[in-house]
Structures are given as structure tokens and as C-alpha cells.
């Protein structure tokens, strides 16, 4: 079968009525998550894993995995889009990847052009999503064919590269990011060792034998952490939104934003593929590029439509690009994709080069549904812009307790243990404290998800070499990955030494 056959099969899966419904719900919730300040894509996806797990409990394992990953991916790119709404109407970005959109978006809203700004954001997101998907389809097969030739040593080094890339770009201090990564990896070692069956760090507490549940930690750190932050900072007053006015962009608007959308899509996609560099970085870069390319750079920051179109296209393209390393290599490049990967592993589906062979239904179903989801996003958002603008006004004082209640419900529904609920609350406080003091959380989750795989590959490689660590340097692929990993950590440090400003990826 060739790619088109697989894609056709994927559409068969994605067009089943329940999967259409799931894509729709995902996009709808995702947009709301993006619109609501206080929950970003990461906490939104984490919060919905248990909810989807219970919704799909009646389906066979593989179909359940497909449906829930369709919904969760919908939340992911829906949130990417939704974040622009608050940036434009309120001047407060719904998530970090929409920070740049505020510069020109809010200015446009002040000039009474909020409608065109919002619709250009939707059109740009759609075009970028489409581009990213076509590129994903083209690249998925060849990449996974390369990846399938990797041995355990290559894999170990590749995953190390992924971790280093995320740590090197996350947050203000590399030391802190590395501490979080190592801590995540250590948390993953708690429980029964899968290779030897030895219990590690369990202290004879039966509940610890199965290890700490990824879901509990992710929901606690992200969702509860953010909620606790809003309570502590009294951040629950409703803002005033700008008037939207007419929605459709004029012909001139469309003409002015065609170039930025195209450039933003391409740039965003390639930045998205790189591990560690996510949507936030993509939107920043595309904004800078537009300013450089433009004939009127002085009009940026004063309501230039290109300043909305480019970053919004870039961040959506980046979220599509980020799916490539996740699906083909099994390496998530960001916090949100790490959470998606954790969700897949919960269903016993291992993302990676074998995914396209072993579970074509999941992989291609997801790709096809992302095409449909992007279309839904456009159809949904053009007419419903005003409804989502109303969602912003949801009083946070009702939202905060409900998010806590959903977290507790979700974790209990999947784990059915009081221990996990207590762990959830502890993680909530930890997440708040760490994030407040510039300890990035994404590397921790990444470490937690990749931990078991890194360890298994390391031990397999060492077993073949009789315990000789040089094997990682002798295999050419592995050596190359290790060198890149090292550079990824060292170069930012050197740049900082020389007093250069290093762009960091805050979140996402």
C-alpha cells in the first residue's frame, strides 16, 4: 500500500461519526481552552486525558486510542488558534505562543478592526495547519523508514538529544531546566523495573510498585499549578473585551496577509520539527522576519495585519510540525506533545517508527482527522467568533473551582485511588512553586515520559557491548546525536556568556 491508500484508510477512520464528533468536541474545547486565560494547551490536554479515557472506555483498545488522540490533538491545535482571540480582544495572550499577536492584534482591535484580525488569524491558522499536514504526510514515511534502522544505542542518544534540546531552550536557567529533566527521569524509575522485575524506590509500599502515574503528575503540575497560581495572585477578575465589528476581512487585508501566512507557515513548520523550539519561538521568529521583509517596518506594532497573520500561522504550523518527531521517532519536542505521547502510551500504543506499521489506523486516522479538524476549526470559528468572545467573560471565580473538581474527578475516574488524588494535590503545589521560580515544567514531564524508554535502550545497548559505555561513541549515528545534544546545551551557554540575548521557549 502506498501513502495515498493509507491516507484513504485514515479518512475512513476519521470520518466515522464518533470520530467526527470527537474531533469536533476537541476543537471546540481546545478553542475555549485557548480563549480562557489561565489554562493553556498543556493543562487543557492533560485535563482532558482522563475525560477522554472514560468517554472511550466502551471501544476496543485501538479504536479507543484513535478516538481519544483525535480529540486531544484537536484540543492542542484548537488551543493554538484560540489563544489569538484573547490576544486581539483583551491584549492578554491566552497562551504563550500568542504573545506576539497582542502587538498588532490589540492595536487593530482598538482601531475597530478586531473582526478582520480574528478572521485573518483563523484563515492563517487554517492555511498553516493544512501546509503542516501535507508536509507531515510527505515526511512521515521516509522518516520512519530511516528511524527503523536505529539500534538501541542510536535511540538512546537520540532521546538524550531530545531532552537536551528541550532543556537548552526552556526557561531562563539551563541548570534549572536540566535539574527538572533529571528529576523527571528519576521519578520515572520509581516502581517495578520492567527488565529485571526488581522493585526500585518503593520502600515496600504496594501502591508504588506500579510507579507514579504520568497522568496524575501532568494534571497536577500543569492544570492545578496554574489554578493555584490564579487563586494566589487573585487573577480572576473578568476583563473588558473590545467590540468586534464586522468580521470578514477586506480584499486588501487578504492580499496583505497572503505573503505573511505563507512565510509564517513554512517557518513555523520547520521550527516546530526541531525539538525544544516550539510554537512560541516560531511565532516570535516569524514576526521578526515579517518586520524585516516588510516595506513599512514602522507600521508594525500599530495594527499591521501582517503582524497578526504571520505569528498565528507560524504557531499553528509549529504545532503540526511538532507531531512529526512525535509520530515518526517517538520523541516529543515539547511539553504538550510529551503529554500527547503519555496519552498514547496509556493505551499501550508506542509512538515511534513502528507506529505506522503496527497501528496504521491510529497514525493515519490522526493525520486525516487533523485535516478535518482544521476545516472544522475554520467553519466553527468564522461564525462563532462572537460566541468565543463571550466565553472570555466566563467568570474565573466559577472556573477555578470547576477546574479543580475536573482534575480530581478525572484522576479518580482513571486511577480510582485516593493515593493519586493526594499526589495530584501535592503536584499542584509543587508545580506552582517551581513555575513561579523559573523552574520549567515541560522538561520534567518529558523526562517522565521518556525515562523508561531511555533506560531500556541504554541497557539494551550496554548488554550488546558487555557493559562498555564506548558503544555510544562508536556507532556513527549515536555519536552524531550526542555531539548535537552537547552543542545544544553548550552553544546557548556560550552565547549567554558573550552577553547575547537568547530567545527562550517559555512553554508549549
Amino acid at each position, binding site marked *: 500500500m502506498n501513502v495515498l491508500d493509507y491516507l484513504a484508510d485514515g479518512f475512513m477512520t476519521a470520518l466515522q461519526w464518533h470520530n467526527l464528533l470527537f474531533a469536533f468536541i476537541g476543537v471546540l474545547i481546545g478553542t475555549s481552552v485557548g480563549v480562557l486565560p489561565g489554562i493553556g494547551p498543556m493543562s487543557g490536554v492533560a485535563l482532558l486525558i482522563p475525560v477522554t479515557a472514560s468517554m472511550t*472506555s466502551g471501544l476496543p483498545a485501538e479504536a479507543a486510542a484513535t478516538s481519544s488522540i483525535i480529540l486531544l490533538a484537536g484540543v492542542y491545535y484548537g488551543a493554538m488558534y484560540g489563544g489569538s482571540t484573547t490576544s486581539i480582544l483583551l491584549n492578554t495572550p491566552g497562551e504563550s505562543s500568542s504573545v506576539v499577536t497582542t502587538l498588532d492584534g490589540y492595536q487593530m482591535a482598538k482601531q475597530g478592526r478586531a473582526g478582520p484580525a480574528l478572521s485573518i488569524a483563523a484563515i492563517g491558522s487554517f492555511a498553516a495547519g493544512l501546509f503542516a499536514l501535507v508536509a507531515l504526510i510527505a515526511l512521515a514515511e521516509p522518516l520512519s523508514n530511516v528511524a527503523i534502522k536505529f539500534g538501541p544505542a542510536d535511540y538512546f542518544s537520540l532521546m538524550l538529544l531530545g531532552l537536551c534540546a528541550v532543556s537548552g531552550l526552556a526557561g531562563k536557567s539551563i*541548570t534549572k531546566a536540566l*535539574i527538572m529533566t533529571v528529576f523527571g*527521569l528519576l521519578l520515572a524509575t520509581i516502581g517495578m523495573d520492567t527488565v529485571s522485575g526488581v522493585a526500585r524506590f518503593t520502600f515496600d509500599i504496594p501502591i508504588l510498585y506500579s510507579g507514579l502515574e504520568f497522568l496524575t503528575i501532568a494534571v497536577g503540575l500543569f492544570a492545578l499549578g496554574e489554578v493555584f497560581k490564579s487563586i494566589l495572585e487573585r487573577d480572576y477578575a473578568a476583563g473588558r473585551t473590545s467590540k468586534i465589528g464586522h468580521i470578514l476581512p477586506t480584499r486588501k487585508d487578504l492580499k496583505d496577509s497572503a505573503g505573511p501566512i505563507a512565510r509564517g507557515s513554512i517557518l513555523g513548520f520547520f521550527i516546530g520539527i526541531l525539538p525544544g523550539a516550539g510554537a512560541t519561538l516560531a511565532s516570535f521568529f516569524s514576526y521578526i522576519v515579517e518586520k524585516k521583509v516588510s516595506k513599512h517596518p514602522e507600521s508594525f506594532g500599530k495594527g499591521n495585519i501582517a503582524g497578526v497573520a504571520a505569528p498565528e500561522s507560524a504557531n499553528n504550523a509549529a504545532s503540526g510540525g511538532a507531531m512529526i518527531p512525535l509520530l515518526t521517532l517517538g520523541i516529543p519536542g515539547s511539553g504538550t506533545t510529551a503529554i500527547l505521547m503519555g496519552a498514547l502510551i496509556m493505551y499501550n500504543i508506542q509512538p515511534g517508527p513502528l507506529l505506522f506499521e503496527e497501528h496504521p489506523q491510529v497514525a493515519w486516522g490522526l493525520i486525516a482527522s487533523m485535516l478535518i479538524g482544521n476545516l472544522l476549526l475554520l467553519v466553527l470559528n468564522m461564525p462563532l467568533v462572537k460566541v468565543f468572545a463571550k466565553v472570555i467573560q466566563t467568570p474565573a471565580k466559577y472556573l477555578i*473551582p*470547576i477546574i479543580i473538581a475536573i482534575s480530581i474527578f478525572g484522576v479518580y475516574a482513571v486511577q480510582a485511588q485516593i493515593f493519586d*488524588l493526594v499526589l495530584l494535590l501535592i503536584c499542584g503545589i509543587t508545580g506552582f512553586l517551581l513555575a513561579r521560580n523559573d523552574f520549567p515544567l515541560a522538561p520534567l514531564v518529558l523526562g517522565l515520559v521518556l525515562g523508561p524508554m531511555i533506560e531500556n535502550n541504554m541497557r539494551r545497548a550496554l548488554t550488546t557491548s558487555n557493559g562498555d559505555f564506548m558503544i555510544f561513541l562508536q556507532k556513527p549515528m549515536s555519536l552524531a546525536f550526542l555531539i548535537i545534544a552537547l552543542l545544544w546545551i553548550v552553544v546557548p551557554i556560550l552565547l549567554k556568556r558573550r552577553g547575547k540575548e537568547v530567545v527562550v521557549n517559555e512553554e508549549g
Partner: protein
Amino acid sequence: MNRTFDRYASIVFLLLGIGFMWQSAKISASAYGSTVGPNIFPFGLGLALTLLSIRLFYEALKAKPTENHAEKLDYKRFFMIFAAAFLYAYFLEFIGYIIGTFLFLLFAFQTLERGKWLKSILISALFSGGVYVIFVVLLEGSMPGFPSWLS
């Protein structure tokens, strides 16, 4: 505040790193058919964490003291809601989902803003009842709805 936190955090991570190294030394060193036991990976990580936390401690010492610009945090409301959430989580199985969720939400709504009792009660009841009906009745999940000592 940042500096002090970093210093304490580095000490906590240092202890954690040493603890993991110490505990992994107790794990049997070899696994059947392999020279690489289950202890190497955690031991190496523990070592890395120890070294990194020493580095963080050093960085925190070296960093210039930042002025205390942190806004006042609302500890009172936070602890009230956190305590309520803890009690709710801890007694969830005992008190049942519907009553527990209703009480927790009502308490939290009122903590964040006094008044509008009718609206608070309505939203709490709708949420707790709605989730229960969808999850248990429609999706046939298992969740203790009412306390077992009531029925």
C-alpha cells in the same frame, strides 16, 4: 525571594540526588543474562542531580540579590480552597461523589466571592449531578455516587 527559593530548592534536590544514589546502591547490581543491572541508570541520574544542584546552589549564591517586587499573595483564600480540596479528595470514597463535589464547589465559589448563593448552589448542583449522570449512568464508569452508609 527567588534567590532564597533557589537555595532551598538546590538543597532539596541535593538531598534527593544523594537519596536516590544511596537507595539505588541497595538494588541488586546484576540482572539475569545481562551485565547491566537495574541500579546503574538511577545511580547515574542521582549523581547528575547531585552535581546539578551543587551548581544551582553556587549560581544562587553568585546571583545578585533582586529587589523584592513580588506582589502579595492571597494565602488565606488559597489555603482555604486547598484544605477543602484536600478534604474532598481524601474523603471522596467515604462521602460519595455527588455530595462531596457539591460541597467542595459551593465552598470554593463562596470563598472566591461571597454572596450570590442561589447561583453558586445551582452551578454546584448542576456540575456534580451532571458529571455523575454522564459518567456513571451514560458511560457506565464506576464512581461512588452516594456514601455507602446512606443507602
